[in-house]
């Protein structure tokens, strides 16, 4: 049993590492204090909110935990220590995450101590399956490894566009991979899930866009692997990322989870774009996140074929009308009731019969959506610079692209499934991100998602000159995450263990 009030309070502080600074003497606290211990009564009303969520810290001292307490046993052996921020003004306990420590590994603590670390939003520890999932950002990774420190600077918008579009995006893929044949797939660390990935991606999108998080009026999180059957991921994202104006401890934002297999996120692109365009909505920005710890039964079980393809990760897109990097030119969606892939409530893994997977499901809907949109916008294949399709494997997106008449240079840049696996709700958004990472201004991108069940959303996007300026703000590009020297490859058993999580 877990206590909801305790969970609420611990995660409120711990997820974002909130604290206060005394406006008089500058002393900092990792807790929301109403007065300063040094300045006393005169500091009432002079305490300033701070948080360490976007900061980088320094690992002061550390030790090895080889016999964790019960709730941490699934982490195995790990390094734990004390992290300081702001030149030692504030210190917090923390563990190093994203690190598998071998039984025989000799650790020289002095190699770790003194290095810069960044807080990561993770699961706190294991609980019963029926309990609230505890989270915390007292997990850290080294800033000079896979996940660099990036400052979050709110940038004042300088141009308002007629057409709404993407103003920023972020892709979060962890450093772990499993490599089988020619395919690499992303693997979560054991303390990750679709909730933690959604928050990390959202954080990266805010950093890239420079958008003031309090101006984000709506957040949609699309996933088919929410660890809760009932309880939104979006509420966690809203609170950790402080979306909308915060009043007391409530965020002034509409947050909702969506589900439609792998198109749960792309489906909401148009809703987000429409919402920011509606003159009376008062919503300047809307965030759409696709996140999945893509589920698959173990290889020898029914539905286990998927286990060869599933990845892990999240993509976040912020839509608005200020400083747009890619305008939404138009869209077309189509749906049919095709049972090609499903997961019944309470079942841990999805099933697919196999009969419908290809032709009447994937190809039919993508073809239809792409053709209809091109027809509507009067576009020919040559008018389109990049084509992005949903990527359950390498063959499908290539086949449909060729069928539609696209050439390799148009579709190959978006095909990332061989690097990350099928990231389900994040699949076509990840393909789009890899194109946005390299696109020049005034290029047209056609993205067509696919969600089993079944349906497709096609969007035509046109990049603007701002795409180049904003690119400098994002170190964690798709390429960076695909070809990173700090990738860590795991074997099949480890992959399954990490994927099941804490």
């Amino acid at each position: 049993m877990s206590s909801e009030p305790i969970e609420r309070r611990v995660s409120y502080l711990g997820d974002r590492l909130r604290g206060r600074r005394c406006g008089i003497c500058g002393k900092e606290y990792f807790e929301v204090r109403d007065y300063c211990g040094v300045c006393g009564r005169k500091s009432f009303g002079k305490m300033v909110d701070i948080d360490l969520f976007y900061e980088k810290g320094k690992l002061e001292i550390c030790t090895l935990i080889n016999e964790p307490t019960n709730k941490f046993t699934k982490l195995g052996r790990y390094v734990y220590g004390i992290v300081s921020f702001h030149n030692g003004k504030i210190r917090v306990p923390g563990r190093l995450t994203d690190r598998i420590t071998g039984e025989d590994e000799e650790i020289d603590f002095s190699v770790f101590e003194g290095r810069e670390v960044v807080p990561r939003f993770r699961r706190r520890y294991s609980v019963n399956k029926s309990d609230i999932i505890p989270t915390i950002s007292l997990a850290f990774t080294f800033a000079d490894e896979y996940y660099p420190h990036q400052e979050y600077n709110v940038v004042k918008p300088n141009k308002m566009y007629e057409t709404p579009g993407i103003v920023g995006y972020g892709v979060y893929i962890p450093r772990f991979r499993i490599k089988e044949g020619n395919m690499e797939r992303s693997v979560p660390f054991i303390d990750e899930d679709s909730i933690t990935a959604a928050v990390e991606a959202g954080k990266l999108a805010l950093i890239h866009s420079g958008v003031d998080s309090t101006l984000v009026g709506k957040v949609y999180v699309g996933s088919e692997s929410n660890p809760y059957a009932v309880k939104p991921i979006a509420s966690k994202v809203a609170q950790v990322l402080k979306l909308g104006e915060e009043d007391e401890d409530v965020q002034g934002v509409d947050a909702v989870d969506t589900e439609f297999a792998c198109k749960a996120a792309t489906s909401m692109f148009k809703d987000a774009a429409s919402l920011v365009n509606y003159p009376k909505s008062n919503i300047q920005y809307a965030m759409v996140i696709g996140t999945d710890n893509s589920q698959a039964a173990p290889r020898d079980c029914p539905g286990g074929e998927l286990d060869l393809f599933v990845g892990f990760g999240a993509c976040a897109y912020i839509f608005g009308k200020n400083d747009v990097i890619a305008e939404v030119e138009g869209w077309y969606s189509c749906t049919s009731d095709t049972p090609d892939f499903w997961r019944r409530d309470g079942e841990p893994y999805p099933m697919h019969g196999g009969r419908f997977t290809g032709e009447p499901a994937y190809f039919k809907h993508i073809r239809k959506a792409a053709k209809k949109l091109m027809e509507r916008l009067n576009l020919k294949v040559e008018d389109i610079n990049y084509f992005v399709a949903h990527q359950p494997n390498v063959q499908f997106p290539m086949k449909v692209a060729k069928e539609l008449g696209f050439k390799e240079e148009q579709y190959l840049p978006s095909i990332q499934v061989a690097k990350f696996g099928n990231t389900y709700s994040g699949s076509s958004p990840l393909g789009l991100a890899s194109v946005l990472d390299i696109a020049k201004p005034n290029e047209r991108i056609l993205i067509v998602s696919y969600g089993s069940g079944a349906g497709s959303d096609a969007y035509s996007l046109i990049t603007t000159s701002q795409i180049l300026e904003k690119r400098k703000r994002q170190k964690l590009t798709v390429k960076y995450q695909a070809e990173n020297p700090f990738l860590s490859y795991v074997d099949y058993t480890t992959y399954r263990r990490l994927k099941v999580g804490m």
Partner: protein
Amino acid sequence: MGNRPVIVAVGRTKFGEHYEKEPEKLIEEAWLKASQEAGIERRDLEACYLSDYFLPITNKLGLEEGFLSELTELHVPMEVTRSFSSALMNACNAIQAGKYNVVLVGGIEKMTDRWDKIRDDLMLLEDPWSYYAGCTPEANHELMLRAYIKKYGINGENLEKLNIALAQISVKNHLHATKNEYAQYQRKITVEQVLNARKEARKPLGLYDYAPISDGASALILTSEDWAEKFTDMSIYILGSSSATDYLTFPVRQDLTHFLASEIAIKKALKVAGISLWDIQIVELYDQSTVMEMISLEDLGFCERGKAWQSIYQSCQDYKGYYEINGKKLFTNLNGGLKADGNPLGATGGAQIFEVFKQLRGEAGERQAKSDERLKYGCVVELEGFGTKSYVYILGRNHK
């Protein structure tokens, strides 16, 4: 003559695993031993001050006062606090205020009943934010050691000596415990064993650096000065007592290399007792880990900061039963310390007082300090949590 509190009798159980006994049976045993010693009847007691750190968690036992009331068939005021020292502090205050003349102070813990979840409980109670971040009850000791090594720039040969000194603390405490019939571990260990356990764990501290979990109880009878003579002619006086507190969250504390609370408490206690630190001949330190024993020597002021390991190392090269510090003998943890005597949290302080009481009275038998002069002053330090509270008691014999 003031109203100084006087200890007239002490009692305790063996520490270790007592799976066959209910917690209240343990306290009964300790109390009966103490009462027998001084010829005290239940009905002489005017109040009881009890302690247990977390019996409501380990044994789902609340309102311990009620159990004791049933056991003793007494209806006197009873209070429960978390450590023996804090119970004793309340008892001292009441005696000094003239409220009572004869009270029972008792401590009890039953940790092995919850062996499977005890480390989570301990850590969560000790420092919740560190727990949430993945800390274990051992990790803070290791971090303190890391911070100590870094702050004082100890490396190379010195670092090796420091590590051996810490091992020697454990070896020494085990040696003392071989003469303590109540101790949890009455066997010798070697420096090699301590070092090998560290090697096996691939950590700076290993199994033999830490006190165990234990069951046990301890008790003492505290009286006012005027009443003491009715029960004994070998009274042990509480000459000075003090406590201090520190932050719960270890990483937030200003200095990670010592326990501020102990540093404050010893100064006050000495002032009240009106003696100097170097008058103290015997000390019972709270060695939840070997690091804690080393750091405590510095916190109390016996050793300079960053140098206690040198005195320990020198003294243990050819151990004679005491630490030699500044040419003076300091008998330390003669009962085996928490490491070997055992550490049933709520009862631990009682066992520390028990030892100093017996030593000052010259009744410690085989483990009696081989002192040149008769022991006159002893000191007990008990911590709660990871140095979140510190209690210091200065005890003395026939001090008029």
